[in-house]
């Protein structure tokens, strides 16, 4: 190890304070700290510190994403070959998916990290690790056939307008990954919805039924899939959002490591279930039911982006509510509004995306009221005290 360290120290010499390339130190440090935890020590106060740092936290999220990502890559190939009616092997499906998706991941990281490094150098702070997760999330929630330049543009929009404009990591109001998707969704709707975009290369073949389940329901058609497929993820959809099973595996990793808030995840699903139940039972009673409202509540939990959104997007600590009670409310409302948008406005089957972005905006408000409760308790105590002494 020592000789690697010495080599790196040698390479870093021109970037030391006072040297020629001092300005670019954050960029070099970012690469260096990927190999080694720096030798920084505590100065005062608490002389010892926990083993965790932001890098470890972010890598844990990436780990939790891997099962869903690998499945998404294979499913892209699976959907492609089954819809085309061609014979294929497991490897074929995987290779086809990788051929489509790996370039998207590379573009996302290249553009996003490029901007992050640029801002770090310009602002003179270290590169924050948040983009390691965002950069992977963005391709995972896109349709498989989206052109690479659109990925690049969405990433640039998300990082520049969604994050850096607010002051960088930790300051953003909206979840950057969802900002990227929302940008693509509203800027290029033809690439982001419909029945041709969810199956790889479907546009080149006619007669494909590559609609998502929510798309089918919105069109008033019958759903051709069983609940089991919806849960396992063998359905068309955005790349990694289809397999509820593997998303739940990721959720378990997040909850076990305490990196993701179990409060948000649990309350998110509860909120969605409650809204689903309301539609299932209330709408028929007032004769306003349709295919979407009658779609069983438990199926609502396993189709579309709900599971992925609640587990990986809503739990982003920066854009979520920060107080414990606030997290319950925040998660619940995401599930609740997500299903509501999905059903009331069939043009936006991505109800979850919109619900999370909406609640991102309201998270500070939720926190405000939770904090007010703490403040009121303190003020009440003071009043009691003054009455006593008076």
């Amino acid at each position: 190890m020592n000789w690697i360290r010495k080599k790196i120290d040698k390479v870093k010499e021109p970037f030391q304070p006072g040297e020629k390339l001092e300005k670019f130190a954050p960029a070099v440090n970012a690469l260096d700290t990927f190999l080694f935890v720096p030798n920084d020590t505590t100065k005062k106060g608490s002389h010892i510190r926990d083993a965790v740092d932001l890098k470890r936290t972010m890598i844990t999220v990436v780990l939790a994403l891997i099962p869903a990502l690998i499945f998404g890559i294979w499913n892209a190939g699976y959907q492609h070959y089954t819809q085309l009616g061609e014979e294929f092997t497991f490897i074929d499906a995987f290779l086809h998916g990788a051929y489509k998706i790996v370039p998207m991941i590379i573009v996302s990281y290249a553009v996003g990290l490029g901007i992050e490094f640029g801002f770090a150098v310009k602002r003179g702070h270290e590169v924050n690790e948040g983009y390691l997760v965002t950069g992977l999330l963005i391709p995972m929630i896109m349709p498989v056939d989206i052109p690479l330049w659109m990925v690049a543009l969405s990433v640039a929009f998300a990082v520049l307008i969604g994050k850096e404009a607010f002051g960088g990591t930790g300051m953003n109001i909206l979840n950057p990954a969802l900002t990227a998707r929302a940008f693509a969704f509203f800027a290029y709707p033809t690439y982001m919805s419909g029945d041709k975009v969810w199956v790889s290369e479907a546009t080149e073949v006619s007669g494909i039924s590559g609609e998502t389940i929510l798309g089918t329901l919105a069109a008033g058609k019958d759903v051709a899939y069983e609940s089991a497929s919806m849960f396992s993820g063998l359905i068309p959809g955005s790349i990694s959002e289809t397999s509820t099973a593997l998303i739940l595996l990721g959720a378990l990793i997040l909850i076990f490591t305490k990196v993701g808030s179990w409060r948000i995840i649990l309350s998110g699903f509860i909120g969605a279930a409650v809204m689903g139940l309301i539609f299932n039972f209330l709408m028929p009673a007032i004769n306003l039911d349709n295919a979407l409202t009658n779609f069983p509540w438990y199926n609502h939990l396993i189709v579309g982006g709900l599971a992925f959104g609640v587990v990986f997007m809503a739990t982003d600590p920066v854009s979520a509510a920060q107080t414990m009670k606030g997290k319950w409310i925040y998660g619940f409302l995401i599930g609740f509004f997500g299903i509501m948008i999905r059903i009331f406005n069939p043009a936006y089957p991505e109800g979850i995306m919109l619900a999370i972005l909406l609640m991102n905006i309201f998270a500070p408000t939720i926190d405000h009221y939770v904090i007010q409760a703490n403040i009121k308790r303190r003020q009440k105590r003071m009043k009691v005290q003054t009455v006593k002494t008076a």
Partner: protein
Amino acid sequence: MAINIKSKRGLKLRLKGEAEKKTSPALKSKTYALIPDNFHGLVPKMLIKKEGTAVKAGEPLFYSKYNDQTKVVSPVSGKLKTIERGARRRILRVIIEADDEFDYVEHDILDPLKTDAKKLKAHIFESGCGIFFKQRPYDIPVSAEDVPKSIHISTYNTTPLGADFEYILSNKKEEFQNGINALTKLTEGKVFLGVDRNAQSFLHDTENVKLVKVSGPHPAGNVGFQIQKTNPINKGEKVWTIRPEDVAIIGELLSTGKFNAERTVAVCGSDAVDKQYFKTLIGAEVNSIIEEVNTSKTRIISGDVFTGDIAQNGDHINFFSNEITLIPEGNQYRMFGWLPFKDNNIPSVHNTSFAKLRRKPFQVNTSLNGEERALVVTGEMEEVMPMDILPMQLLKACMTGDIDKMENLGIYEVSPEDFATVEYVNTSKIEAQEVIRQGLDLMITEVG
């Protein structure tokens, strides 16, 4: 009736190198030092200005510029060796060269329960014992003009490797009780004594106090937590706190008429050779207690791992410290430290490591284990904050200097030490104690 407090939230760290419960006298220190920085907020004015002047043990050396009754006295008799000054002639250390035989300032012997409160208070401040008290809010030296709402003492030490006050006080029982009796005269309210709920201890039989039986992980042993649970501070109120051993010094002063600055110091930490308790005096040389160490490999902490200060060979121990902790410096690089579930030998409350499963005590070093980042992760601070305080929101209010918000979120109830666990756990490596200290200082200048 005793108050029972059971705390669940907090941080329990088992570290290597606990001090064995046996006490030896330390080597005689040649010099003793008083460090004005140990009394945050005190601007020292020297009473004895000339270097070389002979001083008695218990003779005032300097006083607080804004509070002339708050005096700091010499722990030993000898001569004033140097007044060490820094930039803009700020006094860094006042060093006294000790005599072989001590000559004490003689004070009256008083029975605290029979003495008039005013007279007793004047006596305590005149003899230099007023500096032992700290005021909440702000965690600063007290003013003799104030009458505190209550006085709080905690003998329950929950800091990792922290000195056991019950053990320290076990041979000062009478002095301690006498000191407690004196404290009852200084407040309009009660004297609260925090004790370990689960221990069988003579401290549970202390008279004239409101007993607070506490159990739970750190910071349950901090007075700040105990104050909030028993008699919370509201805006405009003042309470005093004092450390247990200092109560015994006051008790001894009243019964013998001598200011005996005895300090029992636990030498602990994985790098300490002789891990046990040593009897010495306030401000003694570090090297009269421990051997010289290579400070590029070992850190000497005057105090505990959470709140102590870095000391060098030749330095003197802090005024209030009951520990000298020696742990390895963490100035080495660690490869691929970001991999989850790697390096499980470093304690972590986060579940991205298997450290929690370890049964043996941890060997810790001073590595930051990362770099400072923007605040991202939420929820972790609340897990180690048992007080009714929103730690992240209060920290952010302090960072932005938002006085109204700080006040609303309870800045008057906290001191930096209450945020030590928050500082330890936080992923972004924010210096939480420093942020709180700056917040408190801002409140002092803006609100007073």
